[in-house]
């Protein structure tokens, strides 16, 4: 698998990361190196091996259905660039 410049630009846009035009080519080369390195894993025969879901032998911990959190709108909005009457205020987004 190989990434071209357009794909890198697309991925950057999806991730909302700004990449200058001049950086796209070098970044594609860098990512392709990483991809090639990862693709070595394809050489390992994994037939009949269960996919590993975690490095720890453990099951998903579950919580009981109790209300134990919340009630601090001030804390939640404390770091917001703008807030009003306990709402976050963001630039207009309307469809």
């Amino acid at each position, binding site marked *: 698998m190989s990434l071209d410049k357009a794909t890198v630009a697309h991925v950057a846009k999806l991730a909302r990361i700004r990449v200058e035009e001049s950086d796209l080519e070098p970044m594609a080369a860098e990512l392709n190196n990483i991809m090639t390195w990862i693709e070595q894993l394809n050489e390992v025969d994994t037939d009949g091996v269960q996919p590993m879901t975690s490095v720890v032998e453990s099951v998903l911990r579950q*919580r009981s259905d*109790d*209300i134990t959190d919340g*009630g601090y709108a001030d804390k*939640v909005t404390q770091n917001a660039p703008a807030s009003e009457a306990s*709402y976050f*205020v963001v630039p207009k*987004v309307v469809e």
Partner: protein
Amino acid sequence: MNDFASRIIQGATGDWEMVIGLEVHAQVISNAKLFSGAATAFGAEPNSQVSLVDAAMPGMLPVINEKCVEQAVRTGLGLKARINTFSVFDRKNYFYPDLPQGYQISQYLQPVVGEGIITIDLPDGESREIGITRLHLEQDAGKSLHDQDPNSTYIDLNRSGVALMEIVSEPDMRSPEEAGAYLRKLRTILRYLGTCDGNMEEGSMRADVNVSVRRPGEEFGTRCEIKNVNSIRFVQQAIVYEAQRQVDILEEGGSIDQETRLFDANTGVTRSMRSKEEAHDYRYFPDPDLLPLTFTQEWVDSLMDTLPELPDAKKQRFIDDLGLPAYDAGVLVAEKETADFYEQVAEGRDAKIAANWVMGEFFSALNASSGDITQPPVSAGNLGGLIDLITDGTISGRIAKQVFEAMVESGKDAGTIVEEKGLKQVSDTGAIEAQVDEILAANGDKVEEYRGGKDKLFGFFVGQVMKATQGKANPKVVNEILRKKLDG
């Protein structure tokens, strides 16, 4: 008036068939959210039910709520679906201000519930089976308010992280009517199970509608997805509009672009939602913060034992054991509370008479009052008591309606009202006979006409006797005596 029952659109170049599939988002009934301990109640102060997990503060980790898992599995069982004892949570990545994480925790390739079935009931009495593809658990997003300020959007994260079940159907529906029947049936099942309140106005149940058209019997056409439609009627209107739009394009030689559209309830029109197109590249991957969700088959079996009698089974029992017509049974089981109310009224009484009263006088009175059967205008016990008075001949059916009205007004029981107003039916043959004699004597000419062959006058005499007794005479006895006197 649109014809929602129609499955075929007649175009200039021939017939087109609609193909419809639905994705329903149903908010899970639970106290706390899917991955945090914040409350889920509707209508709270902004951001007052938000934990630092829901606000996606750095370093916060999700811990799954066992109740939400249980609700999803119970729903799956209610949909006769395959339950997957191993399922995986994935991140669905997209950016929107009401999604603070920048991804929604959802399930993609391995959902908790697999294929199932919903049987829909159509107005013509027919039933059809609609396939369920899957049900998975995911987080709801927050709420954006666009009307608070001209230049900014206000965000409330109270809904952020509330558990949703996304229930996906097969493209098995062929008319707006079937889509409506599917949504109604799904809502009924969810309410019976107590896993979602099904309230579309408050947004706790929302539908995405997939519509395509094709020549009957041919391959599926390209579909469009209409997002977030929030009433059954709107779903049906959106389908009618969208299917016609696609037919018009195809007949002019065009082709359909697969896209996401929005339905405008004010204009009845769907329009393209182009800005979201790129967002379809969701880059799903397993959420590294969560291990796979696993549970035992024994646990699933134990949940099976907690399921209530579901609407299909209840309807069949009403038909088989109580002898109700399919239509009556269908109406009575549509809401669990209605079915419970009816069963209380029918307990130890004639099931059909009970059904007639519940569906007739009682439903009218209910609609005229709160419309909420948990606050009935007449209690089930009192309605039963009224039916008892009819059955044992204390009052006639006609007087009963009068008594019922008085019950609604005063809240008193039937016996008290009959006593107070002196409405007891007169079955005393002697008294009725005297009344009949009086009527016949006063209407000698009509008696002659009747005997001369004008049979229809019989009703006139019955009416006169009933009027003279203020409706209290037992109609059966009146008929018998009149027959004897007139024909004998």
